[in-house]
């Protein structure tokens, strides 16, 4: 097996995540799909790091993880405050900027 297969797996996971973002309407699940896409990117970075034989890819993956952690904190805070004001976590209900 060639490590390129890891890239194919990452592409597949990324496409599944993108489909989930388009299909689902629960804001939390949409957010999870975004996490899945970020993870797929990380897998591709790690596989590239191995293909090239240097650690730069792993550094980028590490930074992606940090950014993802910050993003999750802010995103979930937004979802919680949306739920507080609209009593629903559906992205369809949040069609107006202001109540």
């Amino acid at each position, binding site marked *: 097996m060639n*490590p390129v297969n890891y890239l194919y*797996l990452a592409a597949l996971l990324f496409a599944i995540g993108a*489909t989930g973002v388009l299909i689902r309407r629960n804001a939390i699940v949409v957010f999870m799909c975004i996490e899945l896409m970020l993870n797929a990117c990380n897998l591709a970075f790690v596989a590239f790091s191995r293909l090239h034989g240097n*650690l730069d890819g792993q550094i980028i993956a590490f930074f992606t993880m940090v950014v*993802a952690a910050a993003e999750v904190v802010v995103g979930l805070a937004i979802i919680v405050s949306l739920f507080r004001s609209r009593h629903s976590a559906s992205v369809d209900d949040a069609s107006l900027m202001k109540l």
Partner: protein
Amino acid sequence: MTALAAYTTSTGEAFQFWVLGTVAVIGALCTILMKKAVHSALCLAGTMIILAVFYLANGAYFLGIVQIVVYTGAIMMLFLFVVMLVGVTAADSLKETIKGQRWLAAACGLGFAILLFAGIGNASLKDFNGLAKANEGGNVEGLASLIFTKYVFAFEITGALLITATVGAMVLTHRERTERAKTQRERAEERVREGKHLPPLPAPGVYARHNAVDIAGLLPDGTPSELTVNKTLRERGQIRDVSSEALDDLRALEQRSTDRLERPDLRRTDTGRNGDGDRAEETEEASK
């Protein structure tokens, strides 16, 4: 993994890839197809753990451990907390708001996957270098020397980003209190002045078989009283209903059990008439 410019990995790694890769894809599909957010979160956690194993197999030992600690340990637990806060049983409605949107989205995803696959297939990636040389002095040491030399500026900006995210989360979830909180004494006096609900609120309902907190208590005429259920559950719409249908069922069951018990053994029905609880026991015995 040790040889430089190799063409294939070991058979063990190939086996691991095909088995765990299948599970990872199934987990990802379950994440987007499960109706309840909790199930989605658990499937995603499984996929992330498998990705951590793949990182380890690819020689990224530090990232593999960080993936488990940060993603499955911290981020997924944060997700589960928010799911609990928003309501566990709040399932997605399956009604489509835009007609045919689901199939169009699936087609888009498929097209996207084909595009990515074609891109990877066209690239010439036949041989690979392996990380043996880069990991010579240890994976963590290699990463550290890169982070604190070549990427030190990005690393510092990351610190600023984390601080900003922390402050942002606090600002978003913090609610300013516009008026002074009432003391217990003031609340009690207010309740007396208003004259409604002087005693504590009634307890959630118990009718023969149910004593759960999310089932409304029954008024003397048999209608459920929403007042007996916790306010949070009421707002989420999570009240389970002892509807009139279920009550009719229960009545029919009682009727049947008394009918059946009267015929074989008259003594037992006599003792069974003492109270409701006894009669319920009799019903259970009869059903056995």
